[in-house]
C-alpha cells in the first residue's frame, strides 16, 4: 500500500523543497504590497453617514428620526430575548414609520467584532456573555457613544424627572471610565453576596452569622452534622471575591477597595486585606470547605450546595435562575451581605456588593445613535422594568418597578439586602476595568490556589500584589482611576 500513498518525502518530482522556495518567493513579493493589507480585516471606517436628526419634542426628547432604521442586537443568554422584543414593540409604537432590525445572539463578539472593524456597527448592543467585547478597549479606542444625552433626557414615565434620577445607585458611575462621559448603560442589577438556604440554617438552629467567630461556630456545627460550611466555583475562583471584596470593604473601609481598583502600590498589603484573606484561609484550614471544591465548576458547586452538601456559597443573584432546576422548593433561598470580622469593622454589617449587569452600549459609529438611546429610554420605564423583573427574575437598573409583582424568594431576599445596605453598597471596579487581572490572576492564580490550600494568605497577597504591580506598569492596557 505504501507505494500509493507515498511521495511526500521522495527526492524526485516537484519536491517539497521547491515548493517552500516558491512560497518564500511569494512571500517576498507580497511584502511591498503590505499597504493593501490594511483593507482586509480592518478597513478604515470613515465616511459613514449619520441619520438626520428628527425634531425634538416632548414625546421625542432625543430627536429620533422617525424614518430611519434602528438596529438592536441583544445578548440571548440567561435573560432570554423576550424582554428585548417587548421593548422593541414599544419603540415601533412610538415611531410607526421606523424599521427596527432586532436580533438576539450568544455570539456577540463573533457577530459584531467584524462590524466594528468595518465601521458599521448596529445602533444598540447588549454587550454581554462569554463573548463580551472588552469594554476598556472599546472605550479606549473611542468606539462608543456618550450616553449623557439619554441620562439628561426626561424619563419615560415622568417628564419632570431625568432618566439619571430614576436609576439605582452606582449605575451611572459604572458606565463611566475616566471623566464625565457615560459609555455604558447597565440594564440589570445584580446583588452579590453569600447565598444560603434558610431551611438549612434553621435545621442547625442558627442565624446568618455577623462576625467571623460566629461564622466559624456555624461551620463547626454544620461539620458535626456532616455538612460542609462553604463551597464555591473552584474552577472559576473569581466567584470568591463576590463575598470577599465587600468583606474587605467592611473591615477596612471603602477606600481599601478603591486603592485596589486604582492599582495603587501595596494596596493588597492593607491589614484589612490580610485579615480577610486569613479568615477565608481558616475555612480551608479547619476543613469547612466542601471536599473536592477546587475541582468543581460553578454549576457543579451550585448543585452540591443546593443538595445541602454545603451551607454557604459566594455568588450573584443570577444563581436563582441558573440553578432553578436543582434548588428544592422548600430551600428558602436567601442572600446575605458578607460576614465581617468583628465589631471593630469600619463599615456596618449589611455592606454588600451590588452593581449593574447586562451592559448596553451605543456605538460611536452607529448610524442612528438617537434611536439606540431612545430604545434604552423606553426600556428604563417602569412598565418595561417590571416586565423585565417578572420575566427574568432579576432587578433592573430602574430604581423600583417591583411593586405589584410577586418576587421569587431569592429576589425578595436580594431586595431586602439592598434595603438593609442603604448607602453601604460597594462596587469594585477591578472586575470590569481589568478583566484578566481579576479573573485569571487574582482569581485563578491567587485566591484559587490559596483556597485549595496550596498557598498561604501571605504568599497569595504577595503574588497578587505582583500581578497588580505588573498590570499598573503594563502599557498595553488602559488604566483607570476612581474619580
Amino acid at each position, binding site marked *: 500500500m505504501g507505494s500509493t*500513498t507515498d511521495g511526500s*518525502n521522495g527526492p524526485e518530482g516537484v519536491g517539497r523543497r521547491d515548493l517552500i522556495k516558491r512560497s518564500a518567493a*511569494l512571500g517576498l513579493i*507580497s511584502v511591498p504590497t503590505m499597504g493593501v*493589507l490594511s483593507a482586509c480585516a480592518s478597513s478604515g471606517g470613515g465616511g459613514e453617514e449619520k441619520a438626520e436628526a428628527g425634531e425634538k419634542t416632548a414625546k421625542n426628547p432625543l430627536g429620533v428620526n422617525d424614518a430611519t432604521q434602528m438596529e438592536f442586537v441583544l445578548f440571548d443568554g440567561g435573560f432570554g430575548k423576550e424582554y428585548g422584543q417587548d421593548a422593541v414593540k414599544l419603540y415601533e409604537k412610538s415611531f410607526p414609520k421606523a424599521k427596527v432590525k432586532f436580533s438576539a445572539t450568544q455570539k456577540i463578539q463573533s457577530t459584531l467584532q467584524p462590524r466594528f472593524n468595518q465601521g458599521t456597527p448596529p445602533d444598540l448592543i447588549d454587550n454581554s456573555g462569554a463573548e463580551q467585547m472588552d469594554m476598556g478597549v472599546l472605550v479606549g*479606542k473611542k*468606539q462608543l457613544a456618550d450616553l449623557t444625552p439619554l441620562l439628561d433626557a426626561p424619563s419615560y414615565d415622568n417628564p419632570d424627572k431625568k432618566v439619571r434620577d430614576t436609576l439605582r445607585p452606582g449605575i451611572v458611575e459604572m458606565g463611566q471610565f475616566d471623566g464625565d462621559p457615560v459609555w455604558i448603560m447597565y440594564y440589570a442589577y445584580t446583588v452579590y453576596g453569600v447565598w444560603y438556604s434558610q431551611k438549612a440554617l434553621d435545621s442547625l438552629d442558627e442565624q446568618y452569622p455577623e462576625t467571623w467567630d460566629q461564622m466559624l461556630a456555624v461551620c463547626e456545627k454544620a461539620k458535626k452534622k456532616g455538612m460542609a460550611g462553604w463551597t464555591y466555583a473552584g474552577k472559576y475562583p473569581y466567584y470568591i471575591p463576590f463575598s470577599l471584596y465587600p468583606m474587605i470593604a467592611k473591615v477596612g473601609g471603602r477606600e481599601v477597595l478603591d486603592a485596589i481598583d486604582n492599582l495603587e502600590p501595596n494596596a493588597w498589603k492593607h491589614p484589612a486585606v490580610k485579615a480577610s484573606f486569613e479568615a477565608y484561609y481558616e475555612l480551608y484550614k479547619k476543613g469547612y470547605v466542601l471536599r473536592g471544591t*477546587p475541582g468543581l465548576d460553578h454549576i457543579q458547586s451550585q448543585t452540591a450546595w443546593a443538595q445541602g452538601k454545603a451551607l454557604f456559597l459566594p455568588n450573584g443573584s443570577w444563581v436563582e435562575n441558573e440553578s432553578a432546576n436543582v434548588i428544592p422548593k422548600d430551600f428558602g433561598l436567601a442572600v446575605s451581605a458578607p460576614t465581617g470580622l468583628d465589631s471593630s469593622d469600619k463599615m456596618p454589617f449589611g455592606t454588600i456588593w451590588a452593581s449593574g449587569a447586562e451592559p448596553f452600549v451605543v456605538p460611536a459609529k452607529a448610524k442612528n445613535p438617537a434611536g439606540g438611546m431612545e430604545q434604552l429610554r423606553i426600556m428604563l420605564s417602569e412598565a418595561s422594568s417590571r416586565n423585565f423583573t417578572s420575566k427574568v427574575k432579576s432587578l433592573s437598573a430602574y430604581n423600583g418597578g417591583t411593586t405589584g409583582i410577586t418576587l421569587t424568594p431569592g429576589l425578595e431576599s436580594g431586595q431586602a439586602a439592598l434595603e438593609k445596605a442603604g448607602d453601604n453598597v460597594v462596587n469594585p471596579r477591578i472586575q470590569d476595568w481589568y478583566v484578566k487581572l481579576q479573573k485569571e490572576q487574582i482569581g485563578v*492564580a491567587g485566591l484559587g490556589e490559596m483556597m485549595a490550600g*496550596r498557598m498561604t494568605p501571605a504568599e497569595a497577597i504577595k503574588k497578587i500584589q505582583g500581578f497588580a504591580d505588573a498590570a499598573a506598569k503594563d502599557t498595553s492596557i488602559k488604566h483607570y482611576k476612581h474619580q
Partner: protein
Amino acid sequence: MQHGKYRFVVGFLAVPLGLYALFVVWPFIQSIYYSFTDWTGLSPEFKMVGFDNYSRMLDDDIFWKSLQHSLLFALLLPVVTIGLALFFAFMINVGGRRRKGGPVISGVRGSGFYKIVYFFPQVLSIAIVALLFQFAYNPDSGAINSLLRGIGLDSVQPLWLGDPNLALWCVMAVLVWSTVGFFVVLFSAGMASIPADLYEAALLDGANRITTFFRITLPLLWDTVQSGWVYMGILALGAESFAVVGIMTTGPGGPDYSTTVMVLYVYQKAFRDGQAAYATTIGVALLVVTLAFAAAVMRLGRRERLEY
C-alpha cells in the same frame, strides 16, 4: 516530453493552489503583518510598532509556559496515542491465537467488536467528550472518585482538574482516549493490506508475535505511522487541545497556568483582552513550532520505502 510537463502540472493545479493561497497563505501573511502592529481587534485603527510585540512575547512568562505545554503535547501525545493504537490494531488484526481451521493470521477473539468500540469516541464531538470527562473528573460526585470510594479508597480522592500537578495529565488522557480509535482503524486498514504470506513465512521461521510486529508489521506500516504522527502532532498543537483545555480546565488554562496552551493563549489575547496584534504574534510563534514539528517528523522518519 519534459518541456511541457510543468505547464501541464500547473494547468491542473492553478485552481486548488489559488484557493490555497487565498485561504491559507494569505491569512498567514496577514497575521504576520498584524503582529507588527498594535491592533486591538475592536477598532479599525492601528499603527506599526515594529518588534514590540515580539520582545514582549519573549518576556512573557505565560507565553513560555504555554509553549512548554504545547511542546509536551506535541511530543508526548503522538507517542502514547500511536503506540497504543499500534498495539490495539496489531492485536485486532494479527495478534490473535491461531485457531483450528481458521485463517493463519487473525485478531484476538471478538476483534470486530473491539474495532467498533475503539472507534466510538471518534463519533463524538470533542466538545462533548470534554464535557463528559469534566463530569467524570468532578471530585465531589464524579465517576472516577465515586469508583475510588466504591472500592474502599476513601482516602484517595484527588482533585483531578483542580490540582496543578494532575490537571495537564488529565487533559492529555482525554485526548488520547478520544483520538486513539481513529488511529486503530487507520492502522487496521494498513495492516489488512499487508500480504498474509509474509506473516506465514515468518511464522514458519518460528517468529513470535513481538518479532512479527517489529520485523514485519511496523516496517510495512511506516508511511501510515508517519502521517499519523504528523496529524496527531498538529491536533495536539491545535484545535483539539484548545477545545479540551478551554472546556475542561480551571480558568480556563489553570489551575495556576498549569494547563494553558498556545492556542488558548492566542484566543484569550485576541478575544478576551482585545489585543489581537499580540495574539497574532503568538500565532506566528505557533506557526513556527508547527512547521518545525512537521519538518522534524519528516526528517527523522525518513526511511527507504519498501515495495511489496
